[in-house]
């Protein structure tokens, strides 16, 4: 085992060439399908040794053991339980084949199971599985560890902790990204890098995934954030199937040409993955030599011009704050203090409200979320873990773990599948000693409260003295200034008039010293009226003093606009993009229409038609009101304007110019308009005569048949029937035939509409139709649903409609044929 520093020193001198694929090489040498490659290699050590030697001869300076799937889960599939022994023996075969000059990497990959909160494998169980494999490799004499082809950031974390917990070896972690630049579960390269390097990975990178070209783009995204060496092992192009075989299209020459580009992009460890061969590696070495690219000058982790970046991550996204970045709001709402509904929810072990609060805060502009579960009557640690599990899935925002209990904090940051911010650490005796090493182990960023056992220092210089004292201790554990947010300590201005000035000065000094700066705003205005204005003014001042994060309710009416304006004025929103996005729409702009409006302008007739065509309920009501005020009769409005308008909507739908959302928008508007006019239509007007609006409306009973729960189609049909003047008796979904018959007997409808989506529930339609017939009800049956066809419906005497508009038209035809109404919509 090489000392970790030796490997790092080696990488500081220049790039290291790794090996290429093992699996595809083993297949070429006769590895049959359906067997464990690791166990087969153990039985054929000469094959394994020959492949590894060929990589050494091609120029690889680091070679992986053949232990990709030698974890307890995968070996268990082949009934092998001596995980440590298999790994130890395979490592020894490799060492013997390669000698001492080649760096031997102990290869660990996925168990194939997903780790909580993204799967059913408990996090601690996963870490324990990887510890077993790592122990075997360690005994076998590997120089470093490789955790590779990871698609689940939480499994990568579990594996990294598993390895780190057996010692402190140099560990490289490489993730696999899809063509969209994310892992299967959505982790970006930036988020993966931030999470893994802060958790103690000594090098981070990408393997498998794609061909070199696509991978280069992802490496370039990682490089500015890399504090550790970067690694890249691309496939020999994207695999494709040719003649029934999987083929990697990129030959050695083409592959080799990419090697210098990777080194220029900042990579320190380069090799190949699926489809690459010793020849690919040889070409890479030749190209690196001829391009003179072995030097260390380009390694991303050594770049001197790298800005100081405060970086956090969730399981999916990175949050990066640079000195000129906009203010980030840490949403403070997920805290049970003073929130009865949340208290009850947490007591009941539920989290739906937590998810909703997270969404609302995100929509209101929060860049991350503070989570606090401190309240009597619940287990704070368990509740916080439950919140983390839920929000890791339902929110992409990084979390700020807020607890006074060091044990709770440690549990939370161990499970959290990203790099968390911890709120907070102070000079409180006992707590600092206990919490700081845990924060360092998991690489969490933290909020530093400049408090002393004696209380809150009064002046900014005194507060900075406390900051420096705590930072010195943190620095010994690997922390840098950019990992820490200094809290300026907000005091109440009503009792301490000079306190806000000291707070602002603390922010300024903290930023000058290279730290980030944070405030919990609202305390400043405690006890005063018009608190929002004080908070807003204070926020603007704090932004000018260098505030980078604010803990606040992002939905505050003043806070959001002040933040946006402050960012703009301080050059943190250079082209005003965020400001304009927020405010350019004010005052509210009318929605852009499809260009189908009638005359528009001041003409109520055109306005009514346009509102129906555009599905604008409020405009429709306004236009109807205007027309009534102008002396138009309600019935004229309905029959002369609204009905022609909805008929036009139907035509547009038939022509496919309108599709479902527009049809529904218009139908909803029509419904609102009809409800508005309905009371006015009840009393007959002189000369009404045989107006359709006074006739008994045709009745239709609608139901989704027994056993079927898919009723959105039936609901669409119901709305359209109502639009066209039918009285709808909607029985809902999963309705037994006897209930439909009872309703038909009671309401004596002109038509019965039945729907079923699945083939298993379709037979309920003819059964119900037969039941209705046996009761002597003459109403025709209209059948619909995804699997229903005209032929099938007609086979038992029913009628068929493919969609809602067709259903209405078919119903009108049937009623006209029966002499019950005119063809065309009635009201």
């Amino acid at each position, binding site marked *: 085992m090489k000392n970790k520093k030796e490997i790092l020193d080696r990488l500081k001198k220049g790039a290291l060439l790794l090996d290429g694929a093992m699996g595809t090489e083993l297949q070429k040498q006769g590895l049959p399908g359906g067997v464990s490659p690791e166990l087969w290699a153990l039985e054929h050590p000469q094959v394994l040794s020959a492949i590894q030697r060929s990589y050494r001869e091609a120029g690889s300076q680091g070679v992986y053991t053949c232990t990709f799937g030698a974890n307890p889960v995968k070996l268990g599939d082949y009934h092998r339980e001596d995980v440590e022994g298999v790994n130890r023996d395979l490592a020894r075969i490799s060492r013997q084949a390669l000698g001492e000059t080649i760096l031997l990497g102990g290869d660990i990959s996925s168990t194939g*199971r*997903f780790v909580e909160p993204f799967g059913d494998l408990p996090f601690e169980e996963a870490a324990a599985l990887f510890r077993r494999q790592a122990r075997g490799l360690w005994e076998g004499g590997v120089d470093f560890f490789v955790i590779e082809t990871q698609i689940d950031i939480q499994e990568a974390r579990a594996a990294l902790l598993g390895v780190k917990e057996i010692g402190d070896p140099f560990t490289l972690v490489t993730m696999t990204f899809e063509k969209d630049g994310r892992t299967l579960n959505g982790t970006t390269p930036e988020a993966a890098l931030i999470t893994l390097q802060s958790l103690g990975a000594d090098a981070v990178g990408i393997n498998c995934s794609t061909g070199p070209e696509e991978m280069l783009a992802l490496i370039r995204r990682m490089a500015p954030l890399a504090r550790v060496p970067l690694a890249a092992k691309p496939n020999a192009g994207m695999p494709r199937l040719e003649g029934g075989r999987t083929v990697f299209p990129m030959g050695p020459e083409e592959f080799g040409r990419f090697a210098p580009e990777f080194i220029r992009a900042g990579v320190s460890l380069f090799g190949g993955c699926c489809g690459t061969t010793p020849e690919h590696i040889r070409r890479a070495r030749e190209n690196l030599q001829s391009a003179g690219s072995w030097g260390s000058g380009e390694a991303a982790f050594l770049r001197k011009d790298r800005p100081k970046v405060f970086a956090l991550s969730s399981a999916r996204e990175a949050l990066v704050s640079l000195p000129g970045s906009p203010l980030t709001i840490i949403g403070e709402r997920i805290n049970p203090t003073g929130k009865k509904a949340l208290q009850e929810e947490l007591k009941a072990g539920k989290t739906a409200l937590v998810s909703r609060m997270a969404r609302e805060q995100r929509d209101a502009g929060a860049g991350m979320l503070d989570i606090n579960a401190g309240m009597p009557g619940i287990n704070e640690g368990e509740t916080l873990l439950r919140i983390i599990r839920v929000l890791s899935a339902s929110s992409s925002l990084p979390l700020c773990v807020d607890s006074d209990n060091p044990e709770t904090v440690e549990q939370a940051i161990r499970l959290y599948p990203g790099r968390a911010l911890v709120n907070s650490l102070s000079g409180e005796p006992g707590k600092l000693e206990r919490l700081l090493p845990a924060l360092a182990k998991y690489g969490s960023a933290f909020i530093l409260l400049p408090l002393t056992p004696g209380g809150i220092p009064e002046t900014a210089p005194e507060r900075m003295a406390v900051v420096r004292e705590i930072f010195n201790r943190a620095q010994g554990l690997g922390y840098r200034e950019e990992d820490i947010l200094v809290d300026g300590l907000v005091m109440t201005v009503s009792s301490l008039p000079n306190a806000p000035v000291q707070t602002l000065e603390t922010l300024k000094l903290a930023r000058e010293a290279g730290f980030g700066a944070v405030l919990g705003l609202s305390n400043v205005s405690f006890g005063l009226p018009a608190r929002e204005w004080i908070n807003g003014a204070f926020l603007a001042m704090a932004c000018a003093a260098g505030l980078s994060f604010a803990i606040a309710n992002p939905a505050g009416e003043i806070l959001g606009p002040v933040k946006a304006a402050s960012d703009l004025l301080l050059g943190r929103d250079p082209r005003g993009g965020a400001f304009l996005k927020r405010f350019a729409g004010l005052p509210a702009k009318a929605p852009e229409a499809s260009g189908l409006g009638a005359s528009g302008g001041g003409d109520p007739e055109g306005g009514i038609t346009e509102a129906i065509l555009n599905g604008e309920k409020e405009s429709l009501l306004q236009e109807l009101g205007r027309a009534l005020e102008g002396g138009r009769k309600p019935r004229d409005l309905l029959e002369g304007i609204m009905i022609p308008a909805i008929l036009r909507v139907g035509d547009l739908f038939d022509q496919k*110019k309108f*599709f479902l959302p527009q049809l529904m*928008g218009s139908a*909803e508007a029509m419904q609102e308009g009809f409800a508005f006019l309905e009371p006015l239509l009840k009393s007959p007007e002189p000369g009404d005569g045989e107006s359709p609006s006074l006739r008994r409306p045709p009745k239709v009973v609608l139901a989704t048949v027994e056993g079927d729960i898919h009723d959105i189609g039936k609901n669409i049909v119901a709305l359209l029937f109502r639009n066209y003047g039918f009285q709808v008796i909607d029985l809902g979904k999963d309705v037994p035939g006897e209930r439909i018959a009872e309703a038909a007997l009671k309401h004596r409808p002109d038509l019965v509409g039945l729907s079923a989506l699945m083939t298993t529930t379709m037979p309920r339609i003819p059964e119900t139709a037969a039941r209705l017939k046996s009761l002597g009800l003459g109403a025709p049956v209209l059948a619909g649903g995804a699997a229903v066809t005209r032929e099938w419906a007609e086979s038992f005497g029913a009628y068929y409609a493919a969609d809602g508009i067709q259903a209405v038209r078919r119903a009108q035809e049937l009623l006209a044929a029966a002499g019950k109404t005119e063809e065309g919509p009635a009201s």
Partner: protein
Amino acid sequence: MKGLRVLTSLRAELPFKETLIRLGYVKQKSLLSAGEEEALRAEAEAAVDCLDLKGAILRLPFSLSGPATVEAGGCRWQSRDLARSLAGCRELCLMAATGGAGFSEQLDRLLAAGEMKKAVIWNAAASEAVDAALDRFTLLINRELVKEGKRTAPHRFSPGFGDLDLWVQKDLVRLLNLETLGVRLNDSCILTPEKSVTAIIGIRSGIMSNEEIREESK
């Protein structure tokens, strides 16, 4: 079941183009202004946000006993179409994805409130997002298979497709242990929550020639 892989808390993606098509949008025919498209996308994103996406994957060997009988995991499925889709394969993968009960409740609330425009958008977006989860499972499986020189067959097959009876859902629910993900079957073999899907896909060995595949699919 050994080898069962359970995925929880999955990222739900919005396949917007597919959502539009599901809603009846026809390119170069349907009228959709930029403003309407933006509003529709926002609504579809809100729907996808409410999904609690979970899934399960199980890889199994299978055998064909006759041209229309597939035997896997102790089950026997009669389907010539399924057997055809598994031509050239020695193994198969069962998979399922569900959008969770919370989404169905939200959709029911929209329907009850008469918000049909929203409801149809939510319904379409969620259906596409759940289907997209199966696409990602297929990607994941292929990512792993490539190291074995294998790939999945070109198409997934689901109960209810072709001549594969919907009652096969019963076996899939059991083999994939879907009840632990909150998925159940009603007496009509319909999965609840509503936004739940299952599928079967074959695994082809890379060493099989096209002629062999054609031969098997006869």
